[in-house]
């Protein structure tokens, strides 16, 4: 390929500060969306296993509805579809206070919440049924069984798939650029606009995503080792 690389575009001019702003925006929107996703995921994942059909049905509806529609559509839904439902004053307030960011955050959080929910459910269902029964026999209410026994154990079981989901969430935050959220991918395109050096800008973006994801994966594998339950997770090669 006949292409002359010119890597200096990445640190000359404003490129460096744009990349930094992009990373911060990506981390900010991903962190908030992650908190929302995990909360929704734990809640609906647990509800999908409770012995009460209407709650199970509601949780199933949430999961199937949100995970089976593409994220891009959800971005447009939260940005273009939701504001008209609000009163005029609230709309105007939202438009001057970062409507793009909040729409993107909700789209990402609610979509990944549905996916976290399945991770959570698989964790709960991996716990032997006898534990529910033993706890109930000892006089715990369903709420107590979940809060004190099932959820703490399930959360420790699902660290590996949850890491996977978290990395997906971080990378999917790039879709928010379609509704004008100036995150990392947006900023790499910005550099491309100013310098017309697309490959350099995309490479910088790629390496930053890689670095972010690898750091998260490393932290999560520490967490996994620290909280693994002896006997429930067998680690090959010791650890």
């Amino acid at each position, binding site marked *: *390929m*006949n292409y002359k690389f010119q890597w200096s575009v990445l640190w000359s001019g404003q490129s460096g500060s744009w990349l930094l702003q992009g990373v911060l925006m990506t981390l900010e929107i991903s962190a908030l969306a992650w908190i929302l996703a995990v909360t929704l995921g734990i809640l609906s994942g647990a509800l999908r296993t409770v012995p009460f059909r209407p709650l199970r049905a509601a949780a199933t509806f949430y999961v199937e509805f949100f995970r089976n529609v593409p994220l891009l559509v959800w971005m447009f839904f939260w940005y273009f579809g939701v*504001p008209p439902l609000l009163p005029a004053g609230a709309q105007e307030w939202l*438009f001057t206070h970062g409507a793009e960011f909040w729409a993107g955050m909700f789209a990402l959080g609610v979509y990944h919440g549905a996916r976290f929910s399945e991770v959570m459910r698989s964790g709960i269902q991996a716990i032997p049924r006898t534990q529910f029964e033993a706890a109930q026999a000892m006089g715990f209410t369903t709420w107590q069984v979940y809060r004190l026994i099932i959820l703490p154990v399930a959360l420790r079981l699902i660290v590996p798939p949850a890491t996977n989901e978290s990395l997906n969430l971080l990378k999917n935050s*790039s879709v928010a650029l379609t*509704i*004008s959220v100036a995150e990392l991918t*947006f900023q790499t395109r910005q550099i491309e606009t100013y*310098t017309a050096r697309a*490959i350099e800008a995309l490479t910088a973006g790629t390496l930053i995503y890689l670095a972010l994801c690898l750091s998260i994966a490393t932290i999560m594998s520490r967490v996994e080792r620290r909280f693994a339950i002896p006997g429930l997770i067998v680690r090959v090669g010791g650890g």
Partner: protein
Amino acid sequence: MTRFVALLLTLALGLGTAAPALAQSPTLDKINQSGTLVIGTRTGSPPFGFVNKDNQWVGFSIDLVEQAILPALSKKLGKEIKLEKKESTPPTRIPLLTSNAVDLIAETMTDTRPRRDSVDFSLTFFVTGAQFLVKKGSPIKGIQSIAGKRIAAQQGSTNARIIRERVPNAQLREFPDQPAAFQALVQGQTDAYTNDGIQLAGLKAKAPKPGDWTIVGDFYSYEPYGMAMRKNDSDFRSVVNNGLMEAIESGKYFELYDKWFGPKGEVPYPLTAENKRFLQLQVVPK
């Protein structure tokens, strides 16, 4: 993300093989072998490149390629060359070219000096400048009155860049494509949408209620549209330029202009005497 991956793969393959190109013009070679000229054009920028009511992908830029450049190419290569269209957008058009996915960008791309570091441009085939599209009765009258306002722009366009530099306190919202930016204006997420005047005229003509919208402000930028090609392929570039020059000389260009921008065209936008002269002056003698 797929675009990312495709790019990286191309990059990796390119570095890995690095086969020396022996021919004078790699692009003409490629077109000769495949019998097809692949162009990148727009799907939502009437009247340059868009999908019309009958679901056909048409436009002024596409017509120029079909009626001015394809004949020149066929003549040069001595055989019939077919046209293949792919979608390109401001953020993708340069990567599409450098990765060999398309041979020519024929849409609404402004020729700029930084872009000339990455791609080569044909003659200027259209001249316009940036303005604002606003709701009728809006307080925005041009670039002088956008401070603090929410302004939609197209990501990767020269207009967004100029606004960022000239009015740093305008709240810029950048969208990857025109329909999303216009939707944000319709719903009030933004107060104005800025783009090249001709694009706004096209958008207004296509809007459900064209009367609700008005284009305001003097041109705050100079936007000469050119067709972009891979760098350092002057044989191919000559064929493209000769095609365009011949079309201007023979009057074909003005026929096409009238078809799209004339009183009965998709977007009425009369050709000024000044611009007509400018186009004709670009034609060098035979």
